[in-house]
């Protein structure tokens, strides 16, 4: 036993079993030295997870840093067999919300590389879910997006993580997914396309990334969260373009409420999309022309679109 070796080095060079044996012997030899190793800034969450039983069985919890204590409490909470009805958090999430946030971030940042087992994946995925659902910090989005693509790469379930990712209700969560359309990995491109399936025309485009960027810039002001749910359909559409808002140039609200008038509401989805796109392009070209067009009755507006499209195709 070499007490000066870091726990990370032992795990990476000699494996999990050797690490557990080393820590057990170190505890018998010097508890304070063991605590120093465990509380090291460079320790990863995966190493703490591997050692969690040894730590508990040897009464080492009281020697741990706050970061490690909170991480183990979160881990225990996530792995608890019975949660409902609404078990209270065993750690003081209300007293120290920012601290818990930083611990969760540390767990996901340093723990997502290792696979270990299904229980471990569950802890990491749920922690990522807490980040996007409770804290909703935009700086966590790339971290969770990377984890999502890693899970897909390894053929593991992405179901709950996808739901948690989009429950941040932050439209910019689409950007890291769009970036993956440029990935050299075909699997990543396919997964990004699957997640962005609600972007009309994406699959048919020759340069998917360029198409996505232009779609995002055009539709961002009119996006709204979708009530649809992954548990209910085979494909998730987390956000939808509010065609009425795009048509009228209204900023979309974050709520589920729509302010469509009845005539617009009665149109087919294709026609709504057509009207919204035309309206957007016309006002970009000439605001005066757009104002004139908007003054016309809806059927006259549709006729003009048909005429323009007819001319376009004839050319």
């Amino acid at each position, binding site marked *: 036993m070499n007490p000066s070796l870091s726990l990370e080095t032992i795990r990476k060079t000699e494996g999990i079993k050797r690490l557990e044996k080393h820590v057990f012997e170190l505890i018998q030899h010097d508890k304070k030295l063991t605590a120093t190793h465990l509380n090291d800034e460079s320790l990863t969450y995966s190493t703490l997870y591997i050692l969690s039983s040894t730590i508990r069985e040897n009464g080492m919890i009281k020697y741990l840093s706050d970061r490690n204590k909170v991480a183990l409490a979160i881990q225990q*909470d*996530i792995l608890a067999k019975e*949660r*409902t*009805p*609404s078990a*209270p*958090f065993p750690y003081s999430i209300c007293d120290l919300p920012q601290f818990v946030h930083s611990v969760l971030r540390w767990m996901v940042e340093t723990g997502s590389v290792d696979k270990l087992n*299904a*229980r471990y*994946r*569950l802890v990491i*995925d*749920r922690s990522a*879910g*807490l980040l996007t*659902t*409770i804290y909703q910090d935009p700086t966590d989005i790339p971290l969770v997006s990377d984890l999502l693509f890693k899970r897909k790469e*390894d*053929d*593991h*379930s*992405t*179901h*709950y993580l996808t*739901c*948690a990712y989009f*429950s941040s209700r932050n439209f910019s969560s689409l950007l890291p997914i769009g970036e993956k359309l440029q990935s050299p990995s075909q699997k990543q491109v396919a997964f990004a396309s699957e997640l962005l399936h609600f972007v009309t025309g994406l699959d048919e485009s020759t340069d998917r990334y360029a198409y996505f960027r232009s779609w995002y810039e055009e539709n961002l002001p009119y996006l709204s969260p979708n*009530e649809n*749910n*992954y*548990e*209910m*359909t*085979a494909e998730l559409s987390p956000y939808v373009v509010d065609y009425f808002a795009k048509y009228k140039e209204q900023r979309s609200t974050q709520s589920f409420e729509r302010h469509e008038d009845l005539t617009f509401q009665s149109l087919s989805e294709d026609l709504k999309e057509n009207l919204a796109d035309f309206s957007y392009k016309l006002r970009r070209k000439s605001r005066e022309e757009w104002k004139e067009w908007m003054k016309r009755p809806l059927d006259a507006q549709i006729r003009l679109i048909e005429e323009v499209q007819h001319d376009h195709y004839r050319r």
Partner: protein
Amino acid sequence: MIIIGGSGKQKEEIMNAGLQSPLEQTILNVMYNSNFNYSFRTLEALFFEVRFRVAITESSRELYYSGVQFADFYRSHCNPMFWQLLPDGAFQLKMGVPASEAVLDIYRNGRLYAFECATAMIIILYRAAIKMIPPQQFNRLFANIRLWGWKFDQDLQIVHNIPPDYLPGDIRYVKNPDVNPLTPEWQGENVVDLGDGTFFGHGLGFRPLQGMIEALALRRRPGATRMPYLMLPATRPGFSYLYQFTYNRTEDSRKIILFDKSLKRSTLSIEDYENNQDEFIKNFITVRFPKP
């Protein structure tokens, strides 16, 4: 309103023709009293949908009593004799195993299985299809099934929309918008409308709608402000599509087609074929069952 072969039918006429049970009559009443025109090519096609819906409710009850457990995708498990558990928690039908036997095993050996509520709904639909479609047809249609949420086999032809009426056997969804992020498997519950004012949800059992809402409300995050609610869309299998795979086909379409060495085609009845099966196999290049 019910239209059969292009013309309206009296309710009594339909009931007398073979729909007797209270649940069948409930379904028929909703269709009959609706402003929407429920059109069927034949009376048998109407019976098929009504009985399929009843089979969905029966399959829900049977699933509950089979002893299957609720589990998220990390903790799903299945009988390895019939299914391969994939890393993402999906069950893949094993090579050479008839799909109907594998689905029935879930009901026979329920304690060996644990899965999520959306997967449960697909299993219920498959079980109901087995009740309605001959096993050989079922095994041909669903030869390579994978059970995982709503990633359904295309041959169920699932329809998901806001229907003109809600009918027993519909699958509905109770959404839990403020679910506790530590238990995302309770972000909503797929439920089967049992037609008696109660619903079945895998993991929550049989409850009226309010009971489902209350059970999900207990699974919300601390400080939640939104209550769970029933969403408007309903999910149904493609009844008219699946109907073509039933026994109830004309005698002609049930005939066996034979090809001799010069590829000359002839047909004969199943009974005649079965009486001389060895002879036919010896003397004909191809013996195939007609496509339904």
